[in-house]
């Protein structure tokens, strides 16, 4: 079932690389945002979430800090991991104990050739109301995140490679010097 497959994923997969397509829809099904890019994961808590179209944004976590770099806007925001990772889909894929603490996880049947898991946050001030994860052959293929404001983010992974060797440097960010760096470490989340 879903939860069994998700556990198998955490046990068998230490690193992963994939392409993703992301689409945000509002409660009337209208598309608000579309973007695509690449996702790298290295357990337990390193990841790189990089948008390549229609804009360039890189989100990396080296396990301690979370760096968010928007190339067009020429700004890097740095946050400590605990403050922000809790509220992002990235936590779902890194998994581990932090996930069970943060979410109530139940199997949610099968559809579209995938076994599904439903995750509902235990705390009530998180940014997501519910997250659904569709797994194919015990690997996450689709992620759906319902936020608190009536918007759903659909993410579809493709070209998934399991346990690739990923160089350390992929999880750090070399920040060009003409970029504004906003270091918010120790602040709780974003502008709250």
């Amino acid at each position, binding site marked *: 079932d879903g939860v069994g497959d998700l556990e198998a994923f955490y046990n068998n997969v230490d690193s992963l690389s994939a392409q993703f397509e992301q689409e*945000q829809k*509002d409660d009337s099904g*209208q598309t*608000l*945002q*579309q973007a695509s890019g690449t996702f790298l994961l290295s357990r337990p808590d390193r990841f790189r*979430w990089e948008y390549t179209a*229609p*804009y360039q*944004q890189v*989100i990396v976590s080296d396990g301690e800090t979370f760096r*968010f770099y*928007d190339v*067009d*806007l*020429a*700004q890097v*925001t740095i946050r400590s991991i605990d403050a922000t990772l809790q*509220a*992002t*889909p*990235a936590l779902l894929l890194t998994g581990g104990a932090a996930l069970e603490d943060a979410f109530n996880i139940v199997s949610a049947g099968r559809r579209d050739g995938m076994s599904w898991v439903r995750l509902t946050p235990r705390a009530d*001030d998180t*940014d*997501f*109301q519910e997250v659904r994860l569709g797994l194919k052959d015990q690997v996450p293929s689709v992620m759906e*995140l319902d*936020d*608190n*404001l*009536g*918007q759903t*983010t659909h993410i579809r992974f493709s070209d998934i490679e399991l346990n690739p060797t990923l160089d350390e440097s992929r999880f750090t960010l070399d920040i060009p010097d003409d970029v*504004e760096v*906003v*270091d*918010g470490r120790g602040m709780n*989340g*974003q*502008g*709250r």
Partner: protein
Amino acid sequence: CAIIRKPAETEAGVVDAAAWAEHKNELADFSIWSLQGRVATGQLLGWTGNLSWRQQGEDFDVRLSGPLGAGGFRAKGSLDDVVVIQTKDERFVTTEPDILVERTLGWTFPLEPLRFWARGLPAPGGYDRISVDAQGRMISLEQKGWALSFPDYIEPENAPAVPRRIVLDNGETRIRLVVDRWFDIDGVSRAN
């Protein structure tokens, strides 16, 4: 709409009054539009996120969300009554959304005038200084305490040229907005 279509008299900062008048007319008829973009603010409370804006005549649905779709706010409504939604159980009806939004984000996001600025138009109610280029495109504006610059424009299908990048500064908050996509565009088409 409040733009008075009077004959184009010369105005300080406007290179070609006729081109500006014509461009304003086209933009004023632009009643249905949506944009997808990104916003960054510098200073202490550095914040970066995605902006979705849907405009249907007087009604708008604006969503500002943090990276990966978390946090921020949603403001829906029309001129005089706006519902600002922060989390699923915090919804406020207001006639002054900008104040509420500032409390949510911790910085000022000038929602009401941005409805005009985003299209490259001054908001109704007079302005202190303006500069418009020979093609009738607004390049800079000082209005309502904000200094704005419009460094580049894009020309989406069946629509007049609209800003691709806007920098807004009111002395406290400096906002950079990049528009990635204009869509669902349907202005009143006039034979000209």
